[in-house]
Protein backbone atom coordinates (compact mmCIF):
# COMPACT_ATOMS: atom_id res chain seq x y z
CA UNK A 1 0.00 0.00 0.00
CA UNK A 2 1.22 3.42 -0.91
CA UNK A 3 1.78 5.89 1.90
CA UNK A 4 -1.11 8.23 1.96
CA UNK A 5 -2.23 11.21 3.96
CA UNK A 6 -5.82 12.25 4.40
CA UNK A 7 -6.53 15.92 3.96
CA UNK A 8 -8.57 16.07 7.14
CA UNK A 9 -9.80 19.59 6.57
CA UNK A 10 -11.45 18.53 3.34
CA UNK A 11 -13.66 16.07 5.21
CA UNK A 12 -15.36 18.79 7.22
CA UNK A 13 -18.73 20.18 6.30
CA UNK A 14 -21.36 22.15 8.12
CA UNK A 15 -25.05 21.50 8.32
CA UNK A 16 -26.65 24.41 10.12
CA UNK A 17 -24.27 25.09 12.97
CA UNK A 18 -23.11 21.55 13.33
CA UNK A 19 -19.75 20.53 11.92
CA UNK A 20 -19.41 16.95 10.75
CA UNK A 21 -16.88 14.97 8.75
CA UNK A 22 -17.30 12.44 5.97
CA UNK A 23 -18.15 9.11 7.57
CA UNK A 24 -17.72 10.68 11.03
CA UNK A 25 -13.96 10.22 10.76
CA UNK A 26 -12.13 11.84 13.67
CA UNK A 27 -8.58 13.04 13.70
CA UNK A 28 -7.93 12.62 17.36
CA UNK A 29 -4.89 11.03 18.82
CA UNK A 30 -4.63 9.80 22.36
CA UNK A 31 -8.23 10.57 23.20
CA UNK A 32 -8.23 7.60 25.56
CA UNK A 33 -5.75 9.31 27.84
CA UNK A 34 -8.17 12.20 28.19
CA UNK A 35 -11.35 10.19 28.44
CA UNK A 36 -11.36 8.18 31.63
CA UNK A 37 -13.66 5.26 31.15
CA UNK A 38 -13.72 3.73 34.62
CA UNK A 39 -16.42 5.99 36.00
CA UNK A 40 -19.32 3.60 35.45
CA UNK A 41 -17.73 0.73 37.39
CA UNK A 42 -19.99 -0.63 40.13
CA UNK A 43 -17.56 -3.11 41.70
CA UNK A 44 -13.97 -2.23 42.59
CA UNK A 45 -11.22 -4.85 42.74
CA UNK A 46 -9.23 -4.46 45.94
CA UNK A 47 -5.89 -6.24 46.13
CA UNK A 48 -4.70 -7.55 49.46
CA UNK A 49 -0.94 -7.03 49.19
CA UNK A 50 -0.29 -9.45 52.03
CA UNK A 51 -1.93 -12.30 50.14
CA UNK A 52 -0.63 -11.40 46.67
CA UNK A 53 2.15 -13.69 45.43
CA UNK A 54 2.92 -11.53 42.41
CA UNK A 55 2.08 -14.22 39.86
CA UNK A 56 0.80 -11.68 37.31
CA UNK A 57 -2.37 -13.53 36.31
CA UNK A 58 -4.55 -10.46 36.90
CA UNK A 59 -2.20 -8.52 34.66
CA UNK A 60 -2.49 -11.18 31.92
CA UNK A 61 -6.23 -11.67 32.11
CA UNK A 62 -7.55 -8.13 32.52
CA UNK A 63 -9.50 -7.54 29.29
CA UNK A 64 -9.03 -3.80 29.61
CA UNK A 65 -5.28 -3.97 30.03
CA UNK A 66 -5.53 -1.82 33.11
CA UNK A 67 -3.55 -3.87 35.59
CA UNK A 68 -0.08 -2.42 35.34
CA UNK A 69 3.20 -4.01 36.24
CA UNK A 70 4.95 -1.57 38.51
CA UNK A 71 8.02 -3.62 39.37
CA UNK A 72 8.98 -7.27 39.47
CA UNK A 73 6.03 -9.08 41.10
CA UNK A 74 4.24 -5.80 41.81
CA UNK A 75 0.92 -5.19 40.05
CA UNK A 76 -1.49 -2.32 40.42
CA UNK A 77 -5.00 -1.69 39.13
CA UNK A 78 -5.55 1.54 37.21
CA UNK A 79 -8.94 2.68 38.49
CA UNK A 80 -9.26 5.33 35.80
CA UNK A 81 -9.99 2.56 33.33
CA UNK A 82 -10.94 -0.53 35.35
CA UNK A 83 -14.53 -1.58 34.51
CA UNK A 84 -14.98 -3.77 37.52
CA UNK A 85 -15.63 -6.91 35.54
CA UNK A 86 -14.09 -9.11 38.23
CA UNK A 87 -12.07 -11.30 35.91
CA UNK A 88 -8.88 -10.54 37.84
CA UNK A 89 -10.53 -11.60 41.10
CA UNK A 90 -11.77 -14.78 39.49
CA UNK A 91 -8.36 -15.65 38.09
CA UNK A 92 -6.25 -14.82 41.12
CA UNK A 93 -4.98 -18.21 42.42
CA UNK A 94 -4.71 -17.07 46.05
CA UNK A 95 -7.94 -15.05 46.19
CA UNK A 96 -6.01 -11.86 46.91
CA UNK A 97 -8.56 -9.72 45.06
CA UNK A 98 -12.02 -8.95 46.42
CA UNK A 99 -14.69 -7.06 44.55
CA UNK A 100 -16.32 -4.40 46.71
CA UNK A 101 -19.25 -2.16 45.90
CA UNK A 102 -18.29 1.35 44.78
CA UNK A 103 -19.76 3.97 47.04
CA UNK A 104 -19.55 7.58 46.05
Amino acid at each position, binding site marked *: *MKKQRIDYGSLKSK*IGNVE*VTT*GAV*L*ESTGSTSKTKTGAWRSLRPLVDDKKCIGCGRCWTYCPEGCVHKKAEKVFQVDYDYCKGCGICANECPVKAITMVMEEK
Partner: protein
Amino acid sequence: MEASHAISEAVKMIKPDVIAAYPITPQTHIVERLSEYVANGEIGAEYIRVESEFAAISACLGAEATGVRAYTSTSSQGLALMFEVLFIVSGMRLPIGMTVVNRALSAPINIWNDHQDSMSCRDSGWLQLYAETAQECFDLTVMQYKISENKDVLLPSMVGLDGFTLSHVYEPFFIPEQKEIDDFLPEYVPTHAILEPEQPLTLGPIGFPSHYMELRKTQVDAMEGSLKVIEKVFKEYSEKFPAQIKGTRPETYYHIEEYKMDDAQVAFVAIGSVCGSIKDVIDVLRSKGEKVGLVKIVTYRPFPMEALKKSLKNVKKIAVVEKALSPGANGPVFEEICSLLFEAKSDAEVRNFIVGLGGRDVKLDHIQKIFDMAKKGAGKKQEWMF
Protein backbone atom coordinates in the same frame (compact mmCIF):
# COMPACT_ATOMS: atom_id res chain seq x y z
CA MET B 1 -19.43 -17.32 -21.04
CA GLU B 2 -21.68 -17.57 -18.01
CA ALA B 3 -22.95 -14.28 -16.59
CA SER B 4 -21.48 -15.24 -13.21
CA HIS B 5 -18.10 -15.38 -14.89
CA ALA B 6 -18.67 -12.01 -16.53
CA ILE B 7 -18.67 -10.73 -12.96
CA SER B 8 -15.55 -12.71 -12.00
CA GLU B 9 -13.76 -11.35 -15.08
CA ALA B 10 -14.74 -7.81 -14.18
CA VAL B 11 -13.64 -8.24 -10.58
CA LYS B 12 -10.31 -9.62 -11.75
CA MET B 13 -9.81 -6.58 -13.96
CA ILE B 14 -10.67 -3.98 -11.35
CA LYS B 15 -7.83 -5.45 -9.23
CA PRO B 16 -9.33 -5.63 -5.75
CA ASP B 17 -6.92 -5.81 -2.81
CA VAL B 18 -9.20 -7.91 -0.64
CA ILE B 19 -11.93 -10.40 -1.53
CA ALA B 20 -13.94 -11.88 1.32
CA ALA B 21 -16.89 -14.08 0.52
CA TYR B 22 -18.86 -17.01 1.80
CA PRO B 23 -20.32 -19.34 -0.80
CA ILE B 24 -24.09 -19.40 -1.25
CA THR B 25 -26.23 -20.56 -4.17
CA PRO B 26 -26.54 -19.03 -6.76
CA GLN B 27 -23.58 -16.72 -6.13
CA THR B 28 -21.07 -19.58 -5.88
CA HIS B 29 -19.72 -19.57 -9.43
CA ILE B 30 -18.51 -15.99 -9.09
CA VAL B 31 -16.41 -16.50 -5.99
CA GLU B 32 -15.28 -19.99 -6.99
CA ARG B 33 -13.75 -18.53 -10.15
CA LEU B 34 -12.24 -15.65 -8.18
CA SER B 35 -10.61 -18.02 -5.72
CA GLU B 36 -9.05 -19.84 -8.67
CA TYR B 37 -7.71 -16.55 -10.01
CA VAL B 38 -6.20 -15.76 -6.63
CA ALA B 39 -4.71 -19.24 -6.36
CA ASN B 40 -3.21 -18.94 -9.86
CA GLY B 41 -1.78 -15.57 -9.06
CA GLU B 42 -3.92 -13.91 -11.72
CA ILE B 43 -5.29 -11.58 -9.07
CA GLY B 44 -3.00 -10.14 -6.44
CA ALA B 45 -5.82 -9.88 -3.91
CA GLU B 46 -5.93 -11.27 -0.41
CA TYR B 47 -8.72 -13.87 -0.45
CA ILE B 48 -10.20 -14.23 3.00
CA ARG B 49 -12.13 -17.44 3.59
CA VAL B 50 -14.65 -16.45 6.21
CA GLU B 51 -17.09 -18.42 8.34
CA SER B 52 -20.23 -16.51 7.37
CA GLU B 53 -21.55 -13.62 5.33
CA PHE B 54 -21.55 -11.49 8.46
CA ALA B 55 -17.80 -12.09 8.60
CA ALA B 56 -17.41 -11.53 4.85
CA ILE B 57 -18.87 -8.05 4.91
CA SER B 58 -17.11 -7.27 8.20
CA ALA B 59 -13.77 -8.29 6.68
CA CYS B 60 -14.48 -6.05 3.69
CA LEU B 61 -15.35 -3.23 6.06
CA GLY B 62 -12.06 -3.63 7.88
CA ALA B 63 -10.11 -3.86 4.65
CA GLU B 64 -11.76 -0.86 3.07
CA ALA B 65 -11.19 1.15 6.25
CA THR B 66 -7.46 0.64 5.84
CA GLY B 67 -7.73 2.34 2.46
CA VAL B 68 -7.82 -0.52 -0.05
CA ARG B 69 -10.34 -1.83 -2.59
CA ALA B 70 -12.57 -4.66 -1.36
CA TYR B 71 -15.10 -6.95 -3.01
CA THR B 72 -17.73 -9.39 -1.84
CA SER B 73 -20.70 -11.19 -3.28
CA THR B 74 -23.72 -12.95 -1.84
CA SER B 75 -27.37 -13.94 -2.27
CA SER B 76 -30.58 -14.15 -0.26
CA GLN B 77 -30.03 -15.34 3.34
CA GLY B 78 -26.39 -14.34 3.00
CA LEU B 79 -27.37 -10.75 2.31
CA ALA B 80 -29.86 -10.94 5.16
CA LEU B 81 -27.05 -12.03 7.46
CA MET B 82 -25.01 -9.01 6.34
CA PHE B 83 -27.87 -6.64 7.06
CA GLU B 84 -26.51 -5.14 10.27
CA VAL B 85 -23.13 -4.38 8.76
CA LEU B 86 -24.55 -2.88 5.55
CA PHE B 87 -25.62 0.21 7.46
CA ILE B 88 -22.26 0.50 9.19
CA VAL B 89 -20.45 0.35 5.86
CA SER B 90 -22.57 3.08 4.31
CA GLY B 91 -22.51 5.20 7.48
CA MET B 92 -18.71 5.02 7.51
CA ARG B 93 -18.87 5.86 3.81
CA LEU B 94 -16.74 2.91 2.72
CA PRO B 95 -16.99 2.34 -1.05
CA ILE B 96 -17.15 -1.48 -1.01
CA GLY B 97 -18.36 -3.20 -4.16
CA MET B 98 -20.72 -6.15 -3.85
CA THR B 99 -22.56 -8.39 -6.27
CA VAL B 100 -25.95 -9.65 -5.19
CA VAL B 101 -27.09 -12.65 -7.18
CA ASN B 102 -30.76 -12.17 -6.48
CA ARG B 103 -32.53 -15.07 -4.82
CA ALA B 104 -35.72 -15.54 -2.81
CA LEU B 105 -35.73 -15.41 0.98
CA SER B 106 -36.77 -18.26 3.28
CA ALA B 107 -39.16 -19.61 4.51
CA PRO B 108 -39.98 -21.80 2.71
CA ILE B 109 -36.41 -22.30 1.66
CA ASN B 110 -35.95 -21.53 -2.01
CA ILE B 111 -32.76 -21.06 -3.97
CA TRP B 112 -34.30 -19.52 -7.08
CA ASN B 113 -34.60 -15.98 -8.30
CA ASP B 114 -36.60 -12.99 -7.22
CA HIS B 115 -35.69 -9.57 -5.83
CA GLN B 116 -36.83 -9.83 -2.22
CA ASP B 117 -33.27 -9.97 -0.91
CA SER B 118 -31.78 -6.76 -2.28
CA MET B 119 -35.10 -4.89 -2.21
CA SER B 120 -35.15 -5.46 1.55
CA CYS B 121 -31.82 -3.60 1.68
CA ARG B 122 -32.92 -0.62 -0.35
CA ASP B 123 -32.82 1.67 2.72
CA SER B 124 -29.35 0.60 3.82
CA GLY B 125 -27.58 3.48 2.10
CA TRP B 126 -25.99 1.33 -0.62
CA LEU B 127 -26.23 2.25 -4.27
CA GLN B 128 -28.15 -0.38 -6.22
CA LEU B 129 -27.73 -1.09 -9.91
CA TYR B 130 -29.45 -3.98 -11.70
CA ALA B 131 -28.25 -5.90 -14.74
CA GLU B 132 -30.30 -7.54 -17.48
CA THR B 133 -27.52 -9.27 -19.46
CA ALA B 134 -24.05 -10.74 -18.99
CA GLN B 135 -22.54 -7.69 -20.68
CA GLU B 136 -24.32 -5.41 -18.23
CA CYS B 137 -23.03 -7.58 -15.37
CA PHE B 138 -19.48 -6.99 -16.55
CA ASP B 139 -19.91 -3.29 -17.29
CA LEU B 140 -21.82 -2.39 -14.13
CA THR B 141 -19.25 -4.19 -11.97
CA VAL B 142 -16.45 -2.06 -13.39
CA MET B 143 -18.53 1.10 -13.17
CA GLN B 144 -19.77 0.51 -9.63
CA TYR B 145 -16.25 1.06 -8.28
CA LYS B 146 -15.73 4.23 -10.26
CA ILE B 147 -19.00 5.56 -8.88
CA SER B 148 -18.61 4.38 -5.30
CA GLU B 149 -15.04 5.60 -4.95
CA ASN B 150 -15.79 9.06 -6.33
CA LYS B 151 -14.89 11.39 -3.49
CA ASP B 152 -18.26 13.14 -3.63
CA VAL B 153 -20.07 9.81 -3.38
CA LEU B 154 -18.10 7.45 -1.09
CA LEU B 155 -20.97 5.03 -0.74
CA PRO B 156 -20.92 1.27 -1.15
CA SER B 157 -22.69 -0.28 -4.10
CA MET B 158 -24.52 -3.47 -5.02
CA VAL B 159 -24.95 -4.78 -8.51
CA GLY B 160 -27.95 -7.10 -8.69
CA LEU B 161 -28.39 -9.87 -11.22
CA ASP B 162 -31.05 -12.54 -11.36
CA GLY B 163 -30.01 -15.86 -9.87
CA PHE B 164 -29.94 -18.70 -12.43
CA THR B 165 -32.08 -16.91 -15.03
CA LEU B 166 -29.12 -14.63 -15.59
CA SER B 167 -26.25 -15.81 -13.39
CA HIS B 168 -26.09 -19.33 -14.86
CA VAL B 169 -26.92 -18.41 -18.44
CA TYR B 170 -24.31 -18.41 -21.19
CA GLU B 171 -24.24 -15.22 -23.22
CA PRO B 172 -21.63 -13.53 -25.37
CA PHE B 173 -20.07 -10.40 -23.94
CA PHE B 174 -17.17 -8.15 -24.77
CA ILE B 175 -14.16 -7.75 -22.47
CA PRO B 176 -12.00 -4.64 -22.96
CA GLU B 177 -8.21 -4.67 -22.65
CA GLN B 178 -6.80 -4.59 -19.12
CA LYS B 179 -4.91 -1.40 -19.89
CA GLU B 180 -8.09 0.37 -20.86
CA ILE B 181 -9.82 -0.75 -17.70
CA ASP B 182 -6.82 0.55 -15.73
CA ASP B 183 -7.17 3.90 -17.48
CA PHE B 184 -10.85 4.03 -16.69
CA LEU B 185 -10.48 2.86 -13.11
CA PRO B 186 -7.09 3.72 -11.60
CA GLU B 187 -5.94 2.39 -8.25
CA TYR B 188 -8.15 3.35 -5.31
CA VAL B 189 -6.84 6.39 -3.50
CA PRO B 190 -8.56 6.74 -0.15
CA THR B 191 -9.63 10.27 0.71
CA HIS B 192 -11.21 9.82 4.12
CA ALA B 193 -10.39 6.46 5.68
CA ILE B 194 -6.97 4.92 5.96
CA LEU B 195 -4.83 2.91 8.33
CA GLU B 196 -1.66 4.92 8.74
CA PRO B 197 0.23 5.07 12.04
CA GLU B 198 1.62 8.49 11.15
CA GLN B 199 -1.88 9.86 10.88
CA PRO B 200 -4.05 7.97 13.33
CA LEU B 201 -7.77 8.39 12.69
CA THR B 202 -10.79 7.26 14.64
CA LEU B 203 -13.28 5.49 12.39
CA GLY B 204 -16.80 4.58 13.39
CA PRO B 205 -17.10 6.62 16.60
CA ILE B 206 -20.29 7.13 18.56
CA GLY B 207 -22.63 9.72 17.03
CA PHE B 208 -24.41 11.54 19.80
CA PRO B 209 -27.90 13.01 19.30
CA SER B 210 -26.14 16.33 18.73
CA HIS B 211 -24.53 15.05 15.50
CA TYR B 212 -26.37 11.95 14.30
CA MET B 213 -28.97 13.72 12.17
CA GLU B 214 -26.37 15.91 10.46
CA LEU B 215 -24.22 12.88 9.67
CA ARG B 216 -27.22 11.07 8.19
CA LYS B 217 -28.00 14.16 6.14
CA THR B 218 -24.53 14.22 4.59
CA GLN B 219 -25.03 10.58 3.65
CA VAL B 220 -28.40 11.31 2.05
CA ASP B 221 -26.93 14.30 0.22
CA ALA B 222 -24.12 12.10 -1.12
CA MET B 223 -26.69 9.58 -2.30
CA GLU B 224 -28.67 12.27 -4.07
CA GLY B 225 -25.54 13.79 -5.57
CA SER B 226 -24.48 10.37 -6.84
CA LEU B 227 -27.20 10.52 -9.52
CA LYS B 228 -25.07 13.00 -11.43
CA VAL B 229 -21.90 11.00 -10.87
CA ILE B 230 -23.55 7.78 -12.05
CA GLU B 231 -24.79 9.52 -15.16
CA LYS B 232 -21.31 10.83 -15.87
CA VAL B 233 -19.60 7.51 -15.28
CA PHE B 234 -22.19 5.68 -17.39
CA LYS B 235 -21.56 8.11 -20.22
CA GLU B 236 -17.79 7.97 -19.94
CA TYR B 237 -17.81 4.18 -19.95
CA SER B 238 -20.22 3.98 -22.87
CA GLU B 239 -17.99 6.27 -24.91
CA LYS B 240 -14.74 4.60 -23.93
CA PHE B 241 -16.12 1.12 -24.48
CA PRO B 242 -18.73 1.33 -27.23
CA ALA B 243 -21.22 -1.54 -27.46
CA GLN B 244 -19.71 -4.40 -29.46
CA ILE B 245 -22.35 -7.10 -29.54
CA LYS B 246 -25.80 -6.01 -30.61
CA GLY B 247 -28.57 -6.31 -28.08
CA THR B 248 -26.32 -7.06 -25.10
CA ARG B 249 -26.47 -3.59 -23.55
CA PRO B 250 -27.77 -0.10 -24.18
CA GLU B 251 -25.62 2.04 -26.50
CA THR B 252 -25.27 4.60 -23.75
CA TYR B 253 -25.88 3.51 -20.19
CA TYR B 254 -28.37 5.60 -18.26
CA HIS B 255 -30.37 5.33 -15.03
CA ILE B 256 -33.18 3.84 -17.05
CA GLU B 257 -33.32 2.11 -20.40
CA GLU B 258 -36.27 2.99 -22.59
CA TYR B 259 -37.53 0.47 -25.09
CA LYS B 260 -39.95 1.76 -27.73
CA MET B 261 -41.20 4.46 -25.37
CA ASP B 262 -41.41 7.31 -27.90
CA ASP B 263 -45.14 7.20 -28.55
CA ALA B 264 -46.06 4.61 -25.93
CA GLN B 265 -49.51 4.77 -24.37
CA VAL B 266 -48.98 1.68 -22.27
CA ALA B 267 -45.70 1.11 -20.46
CA PHE B 268 -44.13 -1.70 -18.53
CA VAL B 269 -41.76 -0.78 -15.71
CA ALA B 270 -39.45 -3.59 -14.63
CA ILE B 271 -36.01 -4.53 -13.33
CA GLY B 272 -33.53 -7.17 -14.42
CA SER B 273 -33.60 -10.12 -16.77
CA VAL B 274 -37.38 -10.22 -17.14
CA CYS B 275 -36.95 -7.12 -19.31
CA GLY B 276 -35.64 -9.36 -22.12
CA SER B 277 -38.94 -11.26 -22.28
CA ILE B 278 -40.93 -8.05 -21.99
CA LYS B 279 -39.05 -6.61 -24.98
CA ASP B 280 -39.94 -9.70 -27.03
CA VAL B 281 -43.62 -9.35 -26.20
CA ILE B 282 -43.47 -5.63 -27.00
CA ASP B 283 -42.09 -6.45 -30.46
CA VAL B 284 -45.06 -8.72 -31.14
CA LEU B 285 -47.54 -6.18 -29.77
CA ARG B 286 -45.97 -3.39 -31.80
CA SER B 287 -46.33 -5.47 -34.97
CA LYS B 288 -50.05 -5.54 -34.20
CA GLY B 289 -50.09 -1.77 -33.87
CA GLU B 290 -50.11 -1.49 -30.05
CA LYS B 291 -48.35 1.59 -28.70
CA VAL B 292 -46.45 -0.07 -25.91
CA GLY B 293 -42.99 0.30 -24.43
CA LEU B 294 -40.77 -0.59 -21.49
CA VAL B 295 -38.85 1.40 -18.95
CA LYS B 296 -36.13 -0.72 -17.40
CA ILE B 297 -34.75 0.56 -14.12
CA VAL B 298 -30.96 0.22 -13.98
CA THR B 299 -30.26 2.63 -11.12
CA TYR B 300 -32.64 1.80 -8.29
CA ARG B 301 -30.75 3.56 -5.48
CA PRO B 302 -30.53 6.48 -5.80
CA PHE B 303 -34.00 6.37 -7.30
CA PRO B 304 -33.97 8.24 -10.63
CA MET B 305 -37.17 10.22 -10.05
CA GLU B 306 -36.65 12.85 -12.72
CA ALA B 307 -35.60 10.42 -15.44
CA LEU B 308 -38.66 8.29 -14.75
CA LYS B 309 -40.99 11.29 -14.61
CA LYS B 310 -39.78 12.38 -18.00
CA SER B 311 -40.07 8.94 -19.48
CA LEU B 312 -43.58 8.25 -18.17
CA LYS B 313 -44.91 11.75 -18.82
CA ASN B 314 -47.32 10.91 -21.63
CA VAL B 315 -48.10 7.34 -20.74
CA LYS B 316 -51.72 6.54 -19.89
CA LYS B 317 -51.43 3.01 -18.47
CA ILE B 318 -48.50 1.68 -16.50
CA ALA B 319 -47.79 -1.90 -15.45
CA VAL B 320 -45.16 -2.16 -12.72
CA VAL B 321 -43.84 -5.70 -12.92
CA GLU B 322 -41.96 -6.75 -9.81
CA LYS B 323 -40.28 -9.75 -8.31
CA ALA B 324 -40.50 -8.33 -4.81
CA LEU B 325 -43.16 -7.51 -2.29
CA SER B 326 -43.79 -5.73 0.94
CA PRO B 327 -46.47 -7.72 2.77
CA GLY B 328 -49.16 -5.35 3.95
CA ALA B 329 -48.38 -2.79 1.25
CA ASN B 330 -47.81 -2.79 -2.49
CA GLY B 331 -44.56 -3.73 -4.21
CA PRO B 332 -41.64 -1.41 -3.42
CA VAL B 333 -41.12 -0.24 -7.01
CA PHE B 334 -44.85 0.28 -7.48
CA GLU B 335 -45.06 2.55 -4.44
CA GLU B 336 -42.21 4.68 -5.71
CA ILE B 337 -43.60 4.91 -9.23
CA CYS B 338 -46.94 6.03 -7.77
CA SER B 339 -45.28 8.68 -5.66
CA LEU B 340 -43.38 10.18 -8.60
CA LEU B 341 -46.52 10.14 -10.78
CA PHE B 342 -48.36 11.97 -8.00
CA GLU B 343 -45.59 14.58 -7.92
CA ALA B 344 -45.77 14.85 -11.71
CA LYS B 345 -49.58 15.29 -11.46
CA SER B 346 -50.00 12.41 -13.87
CA ASP B 347 -53.40 10.77 -14.23
CA ALA B 348 -51.97 7.50 -15.52
CA GLU B 349 -53.55 4.28 -14.34
CA VAL B 350 -50.92 2.24 -12.54
CA ARG B 351 -51.12 -1.43 -11.65
CA ASN B 352 -48.81 -3.67 -9.72
CA PHE B 353 -48.05 -7.12 -11.10
CA ILE B 354 -46.18 -9.51 -8.82
CA VAL B 355 -44.31 -12.08 -10.90
CA GLY B 356 -41.61 -14.72 -10.69
CA LEU B 357 -41.31 -15.10 -6.93
CA GLY B 358 -39.03 -17.92 -5.86
CA GLY B 359 -38.00 -18.67 -9.43
CA ARG B 360 -41.49 -19.07 -10.89
CA ASP B 361 -41.14 -18.79 -14.67
CA VAL B 362 -42.32 -15.52 -16.13
CA LYS B 363 -43.71 -16.67 -19.45
CA LEU B 364 -44.46 -14.61 -22.51
CA ASP B 365 -48.15 -15.43 -21.87
CA HIS B 366 -47.90 -13.77 -18.47
CA ILE B 367 -46.53 -10.63 -20.03
CA GLN B 368 -49.21 -10.64 -22.73
CA LYS B 369 -51.83 -11.01 -20.02
CA ILE B 370 -50.30 -8.16 -18.02
CA PHE B 371 -50.50 -5.96 -21.10
CA ASP B 372 -54.16 -6.87 -21.69
CA MET B 373 -55.09 -6.15 -18.09
CA ALA B 374 -53.14 -2.91 -17.95
CA LYS B 375 -54.63 -1.69 -21.22
CA LYS B 376 -58.20 -2.54 -20.24
CA GLY B 377 -57.75 -1.43 -16.66
CA ALA B 378 -59.08 -4.82 -15.61
CA GLY B 379 -58.35 -6.68 -12.40
CA LYS B 380 -57.21 -5.49 -8.99
CA LYS B 381 -54.58 -2.90 -8.20
CA GLN B 382 -52.20 -5.69 -7.29
CA GLU B 383 -52.36 -8.81 -9.40
CA TRP B 384 -50.28 -11.93 -8.89
CA MET B 385 -49.24 -13.75 -12.04
CA PHE B 386 -49.05 -17.36 -10.85
